[in-house]
């Protein structure tokens, strides 16, 4: 089974860089939410300053966004 990896860089001022690698579709968002929830339990609030989707996630988001339109077109047919 392929691995999923999160590479995290913590800078001296406490800002962080999270790179989600090897996740399929929106699994990366689920993993991101789970990590934030665990960090919150330990008193760390994470405030996003930059979010960069990789092509794989963009493809999923585009297909999800086009889904209602496709369903509507099917209904009209």
């Amino acid at each position, binding site marked *: *089974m*392929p*691995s*999923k*990896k*999160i*590479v*995290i*860089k*913590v*800078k*001296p*001022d*406490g*800002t*962080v*860089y*999270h*790179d*989600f*690698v*090897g*996740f399929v*579709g929106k*699994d*990366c*968002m689920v*993993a*991101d939410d*789970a*990590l934030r929830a*665990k*960090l919150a*339990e*330990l*008193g*760390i*609030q*994470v*405030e*996003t*300053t*930059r*979010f*960069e*989707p*990789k*092509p*794989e*996630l963009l493809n999923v988001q585009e297909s999800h966004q086009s889904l209602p339109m496709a369903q509507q077109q099917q209904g009209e047919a």
Partner: protein
Amino acid sequence: MSHIVEARTNIKNPDRALLRQVVEIVAGQHAGGRLQDFYVTYEGARRKSALAISTSVVRRGMGISVKRDTGELAFTGDPFGCRNEFQEIQQQIVQTYVSLATMQALQALGYQVESEDGEAGQVVLTGVTYA
């Protein structure tokens, strides 16, 4: 591959045991570093603090507490004559707390975690899962 996030972190209501462990680690990184239960003010008065650190440079020490009203971390002490080291210790406490908490969080989520020193003083954590 899926996404990249850059983020600010804010420590509020930290885990007390983890915070103590962090201060112990930071104390170990400084000459004469040790945990105390007090710091000394500019006037030379001793102030009790559940958690404090002193080093051979920050001799009067620094109290580390959690503000009752906001839950934020507070660093109290007199940095006169050791401002850089005083600031460096604060930064190390924040960075080490975020790093150890992130390691714990990843492990709790089933990741195998490795830690290494990165460029420009960064700590690099890599969590891997096969689930």
